[in-house]
């Protein structure tokens, strides 16, 4: 047996970096750029600063080349006899059969007999230094501006994500794996930030530099420029060829990483099972197999992408040699100055660097776009229908009643699967409704509708006589106090966790609520008492303790309607007795909906709703339902009668 084929779904949220396949990269890029629109002034400014910076930077080598020319002119000039004109010197050299040097000199600006003009050299170098300083200053300003732009854009995107989270219907969270949603709002956003931070600014500079350098080369020597230009397509083709292959391997690497992460996650989570069921060795074998595959894929990806750099260097060096040789010819024949060749060599170096950079930036950009696509997909998810402006309702505390009425309610999770059809229920203030049924009968569906986590399809629900649709969701929820099945705690102090429903509560109120939930004495045994900080999974508490804290939270929130969803299933039975007493006190004067397996707690309910396979099958009080001899009757007998009989039997024997 293998640990199972870890399919595409796992890879989807197991991998830290998303795959490189995107469905509509162009559209996504356009959308991403659209987010820059509010920053367009800044982007234009950055673009202008970039042009200025690159402009200055590419002038540098040309000016340095001029300095070399000044030097070379001086050296050559010094070797010629003073007093002659340049033309005389050339004639003289030609007469001596040194035609080549003569033609070289013909292209130079020299005065025979005069050495290096130090003042001229100083002037030229001063200019070069100035140009470099300006270039750097503009480059800094550009970087500074773009840093602000990207950070503001990403901050805005993160805010949109967070707001989206609060507008999504619960249906979305129930139908999408949490891991995947999380991966989108964390990993993908991180990846996108990195892309924008490092990629965007550099990409602009790289493209501008290529343009600028090309312009300078054409200006200095069109012929040499042509040689360099020939190498560009070569560099591009080589880069593209390699990048294409390495991208396939990168994709394989991330897929395999996802698979391996899945296996690690699964094995570590089921650690004790793997041990007791004697699967340790088999699991290690399976891991080694996957690990080797990851090694192979990542080796290939690293190697292939690593080849780009030396290939570029090789092409750059060919270019370098070609310029040296051709340039040498041209200088020797007097068409080009030595300084020009030197400048050219520097340009050709500057030229290949941005090309290599663009190659790696494109790689990054593609990964970033894949992430952006997943983020946008999340942002596009259907939201909860908008609510009517609230004004009608004065708040649950003001009206104080807590009556709930469901009229002909119809609800389906999937449109073609009937679930709750034509359901009626009238709950007077202070009444208790028990919801019972076998595992998976859909008891939480009722809760979802009551607190409006889901919208009903037909009929209406009235809270204190007012239709839900005339209220905001928050107004509806404010009327309900809940103890939910999952004992969710957030990273923070115990005090803050209890006070979650009423942040303004005083310390005395917090302690009172904790006492009512029988958690006060436990909290006091902790070294920091109520200030004890829980970590995200509240792993420093047992499940029973967490449950007690959630109950304390509900006590404090003090709403007119209570929902207890299997609230006490993990609390030990002795504590439960106390909680039940406290609950009874809490329920006084409050409407409550209780979901529980314990039939003893349900017997006293005013109404019992019996559910099976998602449907409501019976409704009534304990005696009525027993009389029906239906599902409730058999559920009740399976536990209670057996217990009673055995108890009597054993006790009597």
């Amino acid at each position: 047996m293998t640990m199972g084929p870890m399919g595409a779904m796992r890879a989807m949220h197991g991998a830290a970096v998303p795959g490189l396949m995107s469905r509509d990269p162009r559209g996504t890029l356009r959308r991403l750029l659209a987010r820059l629109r509010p920053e367009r002034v800044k982007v234009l400014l950055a673009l202008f600063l970039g042009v200025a910076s690159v402009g200055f930077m590419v002038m540098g080598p040309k000016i340095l080349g001029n300095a070399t020319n000044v030097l070379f002119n001086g050296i050559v000039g010094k070797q010629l006899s003073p007093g002659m004109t340049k033309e005389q010197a050339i004639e003289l050299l030609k007469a001596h059969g040194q035609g080549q040097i003569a033609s070289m000199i013909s292209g130079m600006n020299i005065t025979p007999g005069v050495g290096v003009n130090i003042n001229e050299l100083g002037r030229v170098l001063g200019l070069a230094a100035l140009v470099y300083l300006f270039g750097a200053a503009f480059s800094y300003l550009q970087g500074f501006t773009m840093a602000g732009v990207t950070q503001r854009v990403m901050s805005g995107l993160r805010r949109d994500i967070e707001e989206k989270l609060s507008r999504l219907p619960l249906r979305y969270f129930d139908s999408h794996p949490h891991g995947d949603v999380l991966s989108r709002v964390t990993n993908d956003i991180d990846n996108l930030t990195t892309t924008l931070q490092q990629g965007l600014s550099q990409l602009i500079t790289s493209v501008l530099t290529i343009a600028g350098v090309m312009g300078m080369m054409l200006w200095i020597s069109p012929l040499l420029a042509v040689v360099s230009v020939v190498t560009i397509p070569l560099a591009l083709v080589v880069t593209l060829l390699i990048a294409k292959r390495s991208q396939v391997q990168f994709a394989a690497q991330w897929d395999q990483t996802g698979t391996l992460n899945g296996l690690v996650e699964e094995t570590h989570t089921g650690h004790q099972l793997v041990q007791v069921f004697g699967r340790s060795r088999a699991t290690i074998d399976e891991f080694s197999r996957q690990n080797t595959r990851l090694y192979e894929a990542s080796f290939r990806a690293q190697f292939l992408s690593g080849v780009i750099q030396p290939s570029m260097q090789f092409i750059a060096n060919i270019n370098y040699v070609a310029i040296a040789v051709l340039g040498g010819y041209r200088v020797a024949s007097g068409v080009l100055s030595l300084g020009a060749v030197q400048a050219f060599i520097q340009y050709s170096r500057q030229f290949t660097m941005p090309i290599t950079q663009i190659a790696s930036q494109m790689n990054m950009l593609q990964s970033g776009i894949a992430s952006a696509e997943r983020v946008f997909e999340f942002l596009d998810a259907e939201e909860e229908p908008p609510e009517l402006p609230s004004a009608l309702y004065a708040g649950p505390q003001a009206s104080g009643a807590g009556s709930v009425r469901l009229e002909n309610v119809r609800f389906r999770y999937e449109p073609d699967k009937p679930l709750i059809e034509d359901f009626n229920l009238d709950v007077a203030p202070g009444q208790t409704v028990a919801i019972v049924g076998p595992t998976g009968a859909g008891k939480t569906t009722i809760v979802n509708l009551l607190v409006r986590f889901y919208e009903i399809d037909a009929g209406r629900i009235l809270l204190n006589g007012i239709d839900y649709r005339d209220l905001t969701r928050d107004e509806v929820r404010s009327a309900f106090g809940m103890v939910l099945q999952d004992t969710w705690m957030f990273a923070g102090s115990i005090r803050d966790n209890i006070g979650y429903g009423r942040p303004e509560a005083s310390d005395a109120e917090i302690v009172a609520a904790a006492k009512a939930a029988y958690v006060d004495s436990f909290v006091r045994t902790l070294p920091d008492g109520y200030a004890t900080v829980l970590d995200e999974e509240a792993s420093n508490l047992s499940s029973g303790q967490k449950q007690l804290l959630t109950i304390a939270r509900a006590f404090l929130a003090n709403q007119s309607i209570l929902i207890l969803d299997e609230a006490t299933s993990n609390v030990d039975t002795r504590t439960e007795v106390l909680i039940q007493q406290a609950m009874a006190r809490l329920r006084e004067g409050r409407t409550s909906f209780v979901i529980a397996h314990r039939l003893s707690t349900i017997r006293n309910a005013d109404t019992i709703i019996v559910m099976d396979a998602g449907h409501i099958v019976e409704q009534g009080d304990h005696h009525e339902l027993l009389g029906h001899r239906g599902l409730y009757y058999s559920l009740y007998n399976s536990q209670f009668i057996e217990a009673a009989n055995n108890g009597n039997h054993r006790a009597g024997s």
Partner: protein
Amino acid sequence: MLTRLLRAYLRPYGGQIVILASLLVAQTLGNLYLPNLNADIINNGVIKGNLHYILSTGEFMLLLTLLVSICAVVAVYWASRVAMGAGADIRRDVFTRVQTFSARDMNHFGTASLITRNTNDIQQIQLFLQMALTMMVIAPIMCVGGIVLAVSEGPTLSTLLLVAVPVMALFIGVVMVKVVPQFRSMQIKIDRINQVLREQITGVRVIRAFVRNESEASRFEGANADLTGTALRVNRIFALALPVMMVILNLSSVAVVWFGGRLVSEGSMPIGNLTAFLSYILQILMAVMMAVMVAILLPRAAASAERVEQVLETAPVVTDVSSPTNPTERTGLVRFENVSFSYPGSERPVLADLTFSLEPGQTSAIIGGTGSGKTTLLNLIPRFFDATTGQVVVNNVDVRIQEQEFLWSSIGFVPQAAYLFSGTVASNLRLGRPEATDAALWQALEVAQAHDFVAAMPGGLDAPIDQGGTNVSGGQRQRLSIARALVKQPSVYLFDDCFSALDAATDARLRGALKAGTRGASVIIVAQRVSTIMNADRIIVLDDGRIVGMGTHGELLTSCGPYREIVVSQLGEDAAA
């Protein structure tokens, strides 16, 4: 930490690293020699008008270039092999080590943290290694070689390096000192934002029920503004760093031409050497920048290495003795003799002086309040923990002198939280007995009351199961987890409160079938619900780590106050009458 880890894991690759290093040395020397040839072309070719010399040197340059590139490609090959190989080795060792961990070791690290250490942390180290393997060789050679050549080319001019290099180093040092702490704080803030978002997703029901959207939004807004501020500072420092380094580089070039120009005009240096010198200075400073790039990755890799080493250095607390004695017969007998257990450093024992024995063929139940030590008691049997004093005996042999694998092969374990592995229903059921027939699986499913829903699943036994078993309901998960233990046919069954998600009717049917399904083995059930255990042959009532009652349901009702209290609370006064 990092060096120690790398030294250990690079040792097997010694040969490859030697090859890699020599290739890198050759490549770097070649690159260093190229400007020299260029100088020759200018000095001997261009200035003297010797076209033939230009051409032949050019040819030589091309050849050298080709050799350098081949060296570079082969070097990348070995660097990738070594870096990815060492990463895979570390990953394998961490995984294998975790497999030997006991429950206490697992708790010490936490599952989530172990997963991160096994994956992301190693990835960081791998990334660093890939960079470091090439850069760490190239940068020093390039730097030293560049200096040597520059000095030989123009000793006087080289004094410039005494200014340029320290200025560069100083600047980089300042940037690093400023950026590294900011970087770290940025990472913490990213973690914080991710945490807030994670809580909003996992706690969505509670947040909405308590109408706390707005306060969650402001909590997020705070974290977001905080991160944006720090990220902005870091990026602005970086925006400054690159231009400043370029300025240092370029001004050095200008200085070279200025001072070199004087030397050239005095005739004490050929003009071609000036061009070469420019290239050298460029290369030296490039080498410094390269070293910086590696240095930036260093803090993160070092932190990861520390976390990985902690795992590798943890010796499991529960290990096999050197010469184990395995039981000759698997009777299923479980005996506790004066067993006490306390967590290290804690004064109060979780279990105190427990003595009892569980006979084969019998069903024993353990009941008690939260924190009474029920699960801990159960965990001592498969040696997830070792008893502090006293001994736990399974199949007539102390568990501590048995081979762990042998001990485990005697035990069928159903944990509190039912966990299924990704795969199929069948692959999960066969976990403990890969050779089990389909008929045996169906039989176990029948006992576990899982026959009907498995038969109704598309594919039946071959129906896919997601990781953790998230695609079946909680109750179905528990029943499959029970069936999995049944397929194994062990001599001791441990059921850790694994009936909680079942409704009373299913619970009752399951218990009925279980009696026949586990015939001949010892069955130990931990439960909260009285109805689950009242038919047990023997019930042990735990309170605060001590046995306060032992006997049948009937006996305990009359003799054991705490038990009676539990029964009354769950079943009402009638049941206890």
